[in-house]
């Protein structure tokens, strides 16, 4: 079950465990402004193909 976390935990996961931020909003919103270092996989396109390159062991943080 996915865990809900706050900002400090996001920072800790990135810093200490190599966490990857994923913005799931549409492309245009991501391009306007996103958290530095985040990649974009819009929710509509979230599937086996768009996630095939992601490391299953790595902490993934969606927002």
């Amino acid at each position, binding site marked *: 079950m996915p865990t809900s976390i706050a900002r400090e935990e996001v920072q800790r996961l990135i810093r200490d465990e190599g966490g990857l*931020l994923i*913005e799931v909003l549409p492309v245009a919103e991501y391009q*306007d402004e996103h958290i530095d270092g985040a990649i974009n996989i819009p929710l509509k396109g979230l599937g086996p193909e768009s996630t095939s390159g992601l490391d299953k062991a790595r902490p993934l943080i969606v927002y």
Partner: protein
Amino acid sequence: MSPRAAWRLETLGFTNIYDYVAGKADWFAAGLPRAGKLASIPRAGDVARRDDVSCQLTDRISDIINQVRAAGKDTCIVTTDGNVVLGRVRIGAVAGGGEATVNATVNATVEEVMDSGPTTARADTLLESILERLSARNVDSILITTSDGRLVGTLYRSDAEARLSEGRAEESKTSIEESCCCCKD
């Protein structure tokens, strides 16, 4: 959207998934790094100075006066252990009264003399918008906080004006260079 995305990732076989529920608005409001087309537009958190002296409710004025003055300030920001802003003590105001007032006040606690609930602005507020507010109220500075009320720093009107002027000068220079076919580097 993010809860649905988190669950979808789980169905795709990912097990190490977290949902940052408060999202990028929370991140930006804390003045943390951002990227993208609009990222270069200056915000309050970009320009706020992060050198405030802070104190707690139970501190005595006599204990903080020297600390504040040594830092070259005239104000102490009252915060909780978790850095949430509660109030402000202006040392100049404390020391400005007659001898009896000063003597009584230096023995008081911060809680007894502070200005409670000072006006604040979020770190992701557009700098131009904050400058308009400061100018309209003829105020020299404003405290900047995160969305959960934690102190980021103090934004000074002079710093905001300087940053916006720099930005306009840069835009003007870029505009001139783009329209001049003869300009060389």
